[in-house]
């Protein structure tokens, strides 16, 4: 899934973002989101961290949950808003321009689940550990953290292979948009360190994309 670096090109043109992502990942991202959202139940309160144009937010809402989507990019939120309106999900979805550093304004133990797709790879180490700590705080005991993101393969050979596959795309992306994504290193460990129990992980063949289900200890299972 080295194609995720190209996502940056699309991000600079938010109106083309969704179509492009679908095309680039050959539907892989959609399937990952579908699998993760099977954990969401009707009536739950869910936070989507880094919701972008709202692909994951909408899937969660369709499961009957109440979702708040936050993102720092107002142009993406604008598009997310239009999509939510088009699907008549306004009653269930709330969108807010807000970064992970502003999660302090969310109430303690107020969410049943926190979902996040392709957002953690945009954060610095400081931001990621801050975000995970905050997510742990705002989740109810037993609440779930559902993550789909680009990660650094741990095994040596795959790491090199991935690096080589990624390089040309990264260069093109860098030239066109002058930014790139940073795959997260050791994401499951970081999530564990923030106080979650890992329920399941699922990698792609290259070990460069991770779907993870974590749980805040406590509550009734």
């Amino acid at each position: 899934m080295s194609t995720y670096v190209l996502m940056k090109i699309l991000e600079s043109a938010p109106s083309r973002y969704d179509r492009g992502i679908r095309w680039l990942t050959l539907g892989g991202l959609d399937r990952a989101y579908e699998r993760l959202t099977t954990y969401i139940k009707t009536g739950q309160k869910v936070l989507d961290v880094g919701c972008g144009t709202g692909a994951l937010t909408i899937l969660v809402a369709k499961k009957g949950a109440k979702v708040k989507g936050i993102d720092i990019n107002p142009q993406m939120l604008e598009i997310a808003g239009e999509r939510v309106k088009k699907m008549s999900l306004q009653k269930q979805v709330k969108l807010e321009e807000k970064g992970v550093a502003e999660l302090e304004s969310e109430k303690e133990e107020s969410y049943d689940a926190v979902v996040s797709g392709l957002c953690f790879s945009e954060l610095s180490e400081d931001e990621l550990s801050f975000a995970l700590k905050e997510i742990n705080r705002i989740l109810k005991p037993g609440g779930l953290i559902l993550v789909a993101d680009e990660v650094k393969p741990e095994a040596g050979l795959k790491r090199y292979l991935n690096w080589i596959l990624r390089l040309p795309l990264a260069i093109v992306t860098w030239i066109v948009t002058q930014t790139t994504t940073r795959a997260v290193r050791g994401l499951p460990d970081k999530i564990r360190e923030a106080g979650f129990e890992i329920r399941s992980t699922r990698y792609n063949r290259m070990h460069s994309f991770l779907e993870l289900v974590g749980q805040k200890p406590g509550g009734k299972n």
Partner: protein
Amino acid sequence: MGWIQYILINVVETCLRMLPIPIRTGLIVLGNPGRNSPVILTCNFHLTVARVKWALRGIDAYLLVANSRGINVWCAATGGLFTNHDVISVLKTSGVEDLVDHRQVILPQLAATGIERKYVRKKTGWIVQWGPVDIKDLPAYLPRRKKTPAMRQVSFPAEQRFEMAVAWAFPISLVAGLILLPLWREGILPAVLLTWGLALIIFMAFPLYQRWLNPRSERIGFVLFDFGRGGVQLILLAGILLGLFAVAKYTGNFSGLFFARWGIMSTLVVLVLSLDLMGSTPLYKSGLHADRFLKVSLDTDKCKGAAFCEQVCPRNCYDVDHHRHLATQPRAHLCVQCGACIVQCPFDALYFESPDGATIAPEIIRKFKLNLMGKRLVKTVGRG
């Protein structure tokens, strides 16, 4: 950081100036700061951070590096890549709040196009102070936190013109060299010299022809680019051809092929260099951005003369009449349409007006930034 390292960083990164070079965001401790030491925030463009550190040698301070995607402050802030959220994020997640007793953070003034003072304060309690435009003025600014009008203004002195000449010449000559490598190896050195020579002439001579540049020109076409009606290029090209003629006469290389080669090559180099000449200076909006036609208008009913505009304008367009509590724009013709004054005005008294009379309200300017091609997602809307 020693002299040699600092010079090396400047040389290499000036050559690669067009590319973003990100560095790790977060907190950098300078010297031996205490609980009342200044907190200074900058972008995560490697060259900028190196220069800030260099300027602050011997000063005890906390330096916060916020995520601007490896791009310089002005471009990133105006292009929506250096935002309120990036500033809030580094304030909250870097741990600086545990290290100092005060809540004042000094931001580069040029970040005012993207960072809202009011918003940062509301979300974090930190008070943004607009530091000087030029990093070199930081030590003079720090003790009293007062800026002279010169510290608020962008300028394009010889050293910056040289920097931009190098920033263009290096990538162009690199590409030219790579193209010529399989085709005409002996031509590489002269082509590289030609590129560097032309780049240096065009940028160093900027003040000489600056008055003929027309930032309002509609004719940003394929050939004419930024030089208004193309006069300057033609004169330059004529000069080059005369030079070629002289060289050919002198060396006895006089032939049609010689002229064709060098004539075409110099034309190409001049065209690439003039592609966004105005945008390569801090004195004009990019010639490729439609925003250059916009005018900043003042709603005198809303203005209370609070002088936020005066504090952030990098062209010193404003004077504030403190008797009438009103801002005036005596130097409006210098405006570079950066939008900083509009973003910062606490009374929404300023807005953009396009030549056809449509207006862009402050909330749109704050929210929707220009992308690389100078477009906003949201179109101009009438004032209602």
